[in-house]
């Protein structure tokens, strides 16, 4: 249940090495049993109101009520205030309706059937060797350039003896601790740094924020916690590999990143290999706080299971991500490459409160087959001289639907605020769609907001031109698409950009022709 977290400059390699649950899963002889014993006790003390769930179980029964929440909270041995917070969220959630303003068509999840808490499968339950793994999946890993050693790990093969995770994890942890950085699962932070969690949790995305964020607040299972102290530049990119532990951490991640005055950090959230996750709903929440002169760069590569070529299955990715530039001259940058999920509903946003603060949003969203993405950002300018940049690239192929939805709001006091928005769509074939819904609200006369939009079709002419120079159609498509996404890819850390490129190539395979 602990999220596997690692610090790394080479995400692929480190993630591979860190596989066996980062020692977190394997560190004790039988962690599940131990946990449960502990839980039993805690539970008896704290929750006396008719909670009937069998805590011996590794999973909560399907559906959601107050006892499910108590169960989750008890499993994590949480303090009273957090349980209260979860319950408040749950009670509020009951009064809310699932939003339907997005340009999306899907069957709403049946919340009575969802299992909201599930302990990790033991590694021994997985396939015993690569021979038992779907060959198509292995082929994709190969195309993504993932080292063979890692294939087994990704496919969930029991490989506990292969990787030396503990040493790697510890080395980085030591290095970070030296400069006072806290980087751990949020469930751990609740115990080790309760004052920080209590101070910031829900301050950027309140539990009442929106349907999915509220649901997340009630039931979140794990996520990352990052704290960068005053003046510290994080010496390496921090990354969380959901692909390693998604099965254990479930569908409701919650991440909280705090950068104190003058601090800076680059955080990578990624799953560059496809996750054959059967969970239908992923409702995550990410909160970022940047104080004076702080700088947070948050990069995501999302490749959840998109469903098959007929639109069957796939993840609903309903995510709330928001950052607050609380301090003067602070900066928050969101970069996302979204290629997976059947349905994406996601608007990483910035609240530009501090004077001279900067918000940036760089996005590539690709929809193929029957995928749908309604994604964009909100830039709320409150402080003086605040600046925001939005670069959105939507690629639609097959029968995919790609929607950019963005809000630029410049409040009354935001003297000299500036926004630049560029919103480009590329269509491949004639059955897909691209839609743009930009909202611009300007309440200050000195402010300037610019919006540029374009729609292009990956033309026969472009392909023929490339072919005529000896370049194959497949290479030509990759070249044209990569060219289209260049402004976003250059915002990604190097290794991530390379993987993102490969991912687009794999996702677009045989989409034209």
């Amino acid at each position: 249940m602990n999220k596997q977290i690692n610090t790394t400059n080479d995400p692929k390699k480190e993630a591979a090495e860190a596989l066996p649950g980062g020692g977190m899963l394997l560190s004790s002889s039988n962690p599940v049993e131990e946990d449960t014993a502990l839980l039993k006790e805690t539970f008896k003390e704290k929750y006396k109101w008719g909670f009937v769930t069998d805590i011996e179980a590794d999973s909560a029964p399907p559906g959601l009520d107050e006892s499910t929440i108590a169960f989750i909270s008890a499993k994590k041995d949480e303090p009273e205030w957090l349980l209260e917070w979860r319950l408040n969220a749950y009670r509020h959630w009951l009064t809310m309706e699932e939003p339907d303003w997005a340009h999306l068509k899907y069957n709403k999840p049946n919340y009575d059937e969802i299992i909201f808490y599930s302990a990790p499968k033991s590694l021994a339950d997985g396939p015993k060797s690569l021979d038992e793994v779907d060959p198509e999946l292995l082929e994709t890993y190969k195309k993504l350039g993932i080292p063979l050693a890692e294939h087994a790990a990704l496919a969930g093969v029991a490989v506990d003896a292969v990787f030396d995770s503990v040493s790697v994890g510890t080395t980085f942890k030591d290095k970070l601790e030296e400069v006072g950085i806290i980087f751990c699962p949020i469930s751990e932070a609740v115990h080790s740094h309760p004052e920080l969690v209590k101070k910031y949790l829900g301050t950027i995305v309140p539990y009442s924020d929106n349907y999915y964020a509220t649901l997340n607040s009630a039931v979140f299972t794990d996520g990352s916690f990052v704290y960068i102290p005053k003046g510290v530049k994080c010496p390496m990119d921090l990354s969380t590999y959901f692909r390693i532990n998604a099965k254990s951490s479930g569908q409701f991640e919650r991440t909280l990143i705090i950068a104190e005055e003058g601090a800076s950090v680059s955080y990578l959230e990624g799953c560059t290999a496809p996750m054959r996750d059967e969970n239908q709903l992923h409702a995550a929440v990410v909160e970022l706080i940047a104080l004076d002169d702080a700088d947070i760069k948050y990069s995501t590569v999302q490749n959840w299971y998109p469903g098959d070529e007929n639109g069957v299955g796939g993840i609903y990715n309903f995510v709330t991500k928001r950052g607050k530039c609380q301090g003067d001259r602070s900066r928050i940058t969101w970069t996302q490459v979204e290629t997976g999920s059947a349905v994406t509903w996601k608007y990483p946003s910035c609240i530009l409160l501090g004077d001279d603060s900067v918000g940036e949003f760089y996005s590539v969203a690709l929809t193929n087959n029957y995928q749908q993405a309604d994604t964009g950002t909100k830039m709320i300018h409150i402080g003086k001289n605040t600046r925001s940049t939005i670069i959105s690239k939507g690629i639609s192929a097959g029968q995919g639907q790609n929607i950019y939805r963005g809000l630029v709001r410049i409040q009354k006091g935001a003297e000299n605020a500036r926004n630049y928005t560029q919103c480009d769509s590329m269509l491949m074939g004639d059955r897909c769609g691209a839609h743009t819904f930009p909202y611009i609200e300007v309440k200050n006369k000195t402010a300037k907001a610019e919006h540029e939009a374009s729609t292009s079709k990956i033309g026969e002419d472009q392909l023929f031109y490339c072919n005529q120079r000896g370049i194959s159609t497949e290479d030509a498509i990759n070249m044209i698409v990569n060219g289209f996404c260049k402004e976003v890819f250059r915002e990604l850390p190097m290794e991530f950009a390379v993987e993102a490129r490969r991912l687009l190539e794999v996702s677009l395979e045989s989409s034209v022709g």
Partner: protein
Amino acid sequence: MTTPLLEITNLHANIEGKEILKGVNLTVMPGEVHSIMGPNGSGKSTLASVIAGHEAYEVTDGSIRFNGIDLLELEADQRACAGVFLAFQYPVEIPGVSTKFFLKAAVNAIRKYRGEEELDAMDFLDMVEEKAESVSLSIDLLDRNVNEGFSGGEKKRAEVFQMAMLDPLLGVLDETDSGLDIDALKIVAEGVNKLRSKKRGFIVITHYQRLLDFIVPDFVHVLKDGVIVKSGDKSLALELEEKGYAGIESCGSACSCS
């Protein structure tokens, strides 16, 4: 006897069901420069596109042999690799892709096809510098995206430069002179002339005789309504200039050209 570089026999081609080429015959030997002239809509650009393998055109009859192989069997990219180069009338822009990157991909795709080793960045840049000079192309232009924001003259010079880089056996120039002033025309023509060799053949498609003052053809053909109605030497181009296409008499059944 030498194998013809290009041998087009009774070529018929449609686009969207409309027949454009109605039985074209043309033979180009290595080292020869053939000019194709003709009024608008006569099928000149279609001929160029069909040779290069544009999918929108359907070949309904006839054959094209290139350097001893059946060209119609090959996809457009394979034809390029086999040595067919088309200098486009309207070169296409590719946003976000630098000209250098694009050309390196092209050069290496072709080298791979020929069984040659791919060029590394250093060797490639050396080659770029050498070839760019031959068409007086500023190297800076090559850092810009493919054809994006190029002037008309820059686009055409870039096409000739690409031809020099890719070293084809057959260069098809589709109205490379259109939209060029006289100075630009001279530079482009000079670039082409430098590429003339005993092995390489050219098909130069143009409306105007003017280009042929600078790229002197061995043969001139008049394409009218999808067939070659008259063939001759350079003097035919001058005759056309004087009389216009309307004044051209078909050479009749005795001539091998139609």
